[in-house]
């Protein structure tokens, strides 16, 4: 068996390794595929669908789809970007996101992906759901208004922290992030240094008393769009 697989993304031929997903192969080749629920070091979730690409003309999530010899992947097309904008818009309106006074602004992946896709404001009607805040823990709080149900905290807690602090409850539009206790976050064994806290792409899991330590304007995505780090790899293969 050969140890490289050749595939095409947006007309560019790239090499990947057996067992890689489309996203992993693209990352290594310096091609950015937008994503929210995927995170290095975590098992792919396939839930946000922002990484939807066309594989031989069929939609697939790049984070879960393995590469195969000769596949033709479309990533940056008008059709796909329109779908991605719709999905990101959906995430905005199904929650309560107010970038202008969110501590995560500038470090927020939802916001950064939105900007990168050219979204200035969501076009869909806001749903204004009632989600709830859990500020019981001395060092960390959960703001479900900003949760995008990506499951990164769930997986990070399980797989990286060796705990099981988070889980999902309810179904459909009632689905919510929950904690492993009959009451509140303070009753779990979470610690402020847990990887689960860092894993949140949005402002749903935040540390207390460090808000705005880095001023707006000097944050991660304030200068370079999300995905720039990946694109630096371009041509390195």
């Amino acid at each position, binding site marked *: 068996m050969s140890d490289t697989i050749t595939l095409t993304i947006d007309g560019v031929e790239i090499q990947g390794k057996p067992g890689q997903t489309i996203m992993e192969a693209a990352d290594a080749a310096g091609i950015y595929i937008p994503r929210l629920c995927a995170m290095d070091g975590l098992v792919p979730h396939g839930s946000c669908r922002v990484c939807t690409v066309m594989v031989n003309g069929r939609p697939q999530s790049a984070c879960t789809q393995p590469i195969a010899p000769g596949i033709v992947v479309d990533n940056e097309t008008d059709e796909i970007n329109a779908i991605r904008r719709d999905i990101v818009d959906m*995430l905005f309106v199904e929650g309560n996101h107010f970038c202008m006074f969110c501590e995560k602004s500038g470090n927020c992946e939802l916001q950064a992906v939105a900007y990168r896709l050219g979204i200035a404001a969501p076009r869909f009607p806001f749903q204004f759901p009632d989600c709830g805040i859990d500020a019981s823990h001395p060092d960390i709080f959960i703001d479900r208004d900003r949760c995008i149900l990506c499951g990164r905290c769930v997986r990070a807690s399980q797989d990286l922290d060796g705990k099981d602090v988070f889980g999902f409850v309810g179904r459909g*539009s009632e689905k919510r992030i929950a904690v492993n206790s009959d009451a509140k976050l303070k009753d779990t064994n979470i610690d402020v240094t847990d990887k689960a806290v860092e894993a949140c792409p949005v402002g749903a899991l935040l540390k207390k008393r460090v808000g705005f330590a880095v001023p707006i304007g000097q944050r991660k995505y304030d200068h370079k769009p999300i995905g720039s780090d990946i694109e630096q790899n371009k041509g390195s293969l």
Partner: protein
Amino acid sequence: MSETLESAVKAVCSECGNDRERMMDIVRAIQGKFGCVSSEAMDMIAKQLATHRVEVESVVSFYSFLSDRPKGKVVIRLCDDIIDEMAGSADVANAFATELGIGIGETTADGKITLEHTPCIGMCDQVPAAMVNDVVVTNLTPAKVKDIVAKLKADVDADLVDAPGDGNNANDLVKAMVQNNIQQSGDVIFAGMEPGAAIKKALEMAPKDVIAEVTKSKLRGRGGAGFPTGLKWKFTSDAPGAEKFVLCNADEGEPGTFKDRVILTEQPDMMFEGMTVAGYAIDASTGVVYLRAEYAYLREYLESVLARRRSDGLLGKSVCGKDGFDFDIRIQMGAGAYICGEETALISSCEGLRGDPKNRPPFPAQEGYKAGPTTVNNVETFCCCARVMEKGADWFAGIGDGQSVGTKLLSISGDCGKPGIYEVPFGITVDEMLKMCGAKDTAAVQVGGASGQMIGKNDFGRKICYDDLATGGSIMIFNSKRDLLKVAEKFMEFFVDESCGYCTPCRAGNVLLLNALKTILAGKGEASDLEYIETLGNTVIKASRCGLGQTSPNPILTTLKNFRPAYEALLVAPSKDGYQVSFDIKAAVGDAAAIAGRDSVHAY
């Protein structure tokens, strides 16, 4: 009840071997005993199973038949699908509410009776229908409701079945008032078969030849997706894996489908026979029937059939005396979730998890139940397999039309003279079908359930088959007096309720689609809203992770395609002030005005 929660949890868990994968059985049992799985119960279950509490909660909160808050000793679940509604389910609901003195979603003050709505319970041929705990009551009228409530008030365990239905509905272990309504039988499903006949034929062949025979028959799955059964078995058989599994999909959740109910009632032997053949073909020793909670009334009877087959040597060790072929079947109950009919969600549920579909690949044939190669087939498909074995592939392939061979069971309901089950050869046209079931003045037919398509007169010459109008069996008929947009709304509400919520487009997109439709129905839609619906629907279909979201916009999109004038008639011209017509500025600033104590001067 003298049993304490703690002792009950301990007993139930240990009956299930303290096996976390039996979570569904455990929480169902606690729900049954205590009317809820309380927060306390969740803690105890987690402790007993050495798992995390949030995992118990995630399961309990997922399924509609489970609840963390107490419900009445009796839960009345009124079917609120469109066919029931057309038959007057609103009056029935009102009658229940009046007699009980409570609203939908409430429990009587004495804690005895809870009243709820539930989606299609598989009784569209005898509407309006409801479940009273596990007992199905059909053909309801306000007068019957009065009688039922009086009986329940006197005794929560009252027998509500005066006259049992036909066939095995009258069996002592079923005793349901349900009627089979088999309007037309064919040679594949509703014909006799000696128990064991198909297995014995199969056992004369090598497993790979059994698969070859099924492949040769050109049999395709009857559950909706139409995947070639022989190929699925071959994939499962070829996949590496120590333990393989046969799963039978008896979740039958697609609104308007009830054919599996009738197979389960009248031909369970044939279904078990097909599963056993599959077990032999793919080298599995375990089969699981995933039975929807709505069909719990059939469970005891099905268990008795399994027991008989065991004592007849058709299940268990060395099936039919064949050394080395051990196969047994267990029944896994569902707990109210349409998504669990999706094969990977079904597997999740069998494993004691939320009914979230799994990422593919791996496909179930590679890595399914308990990570073993698994074939998931529909109830009817397994019956076809048994018949293919008994009569041969050529005989089977000789029935039907082109690539769609054999017969298909249609569950026909709605505006027609003879609703019920029709076993027809593939290739029948819609016109022929309408005639067959005595439909008059038909304006539209919903083919394939809520996730299927709504077709109009122009399409009535088309054929029911995989290559034209595909259906898992649901056919709902609407006459010219019906409001088809209301039908679409009903179906969209169903999908919003039944989306598992795992992926964004299905979780959020369906809500937006439903709201857009409601805006139009309220007379506030503009032409641009139709475009919005089409674009949004396309995104949901393309980006959703499983078949639910990949089909859920169909009710709107197919009515829009085939009945566009119905939408256009409701549209209004854009407003001159530049606001969308659906935007109500008074409502939008209402809260602020209330706080300020005066109306905004700019708002009007």
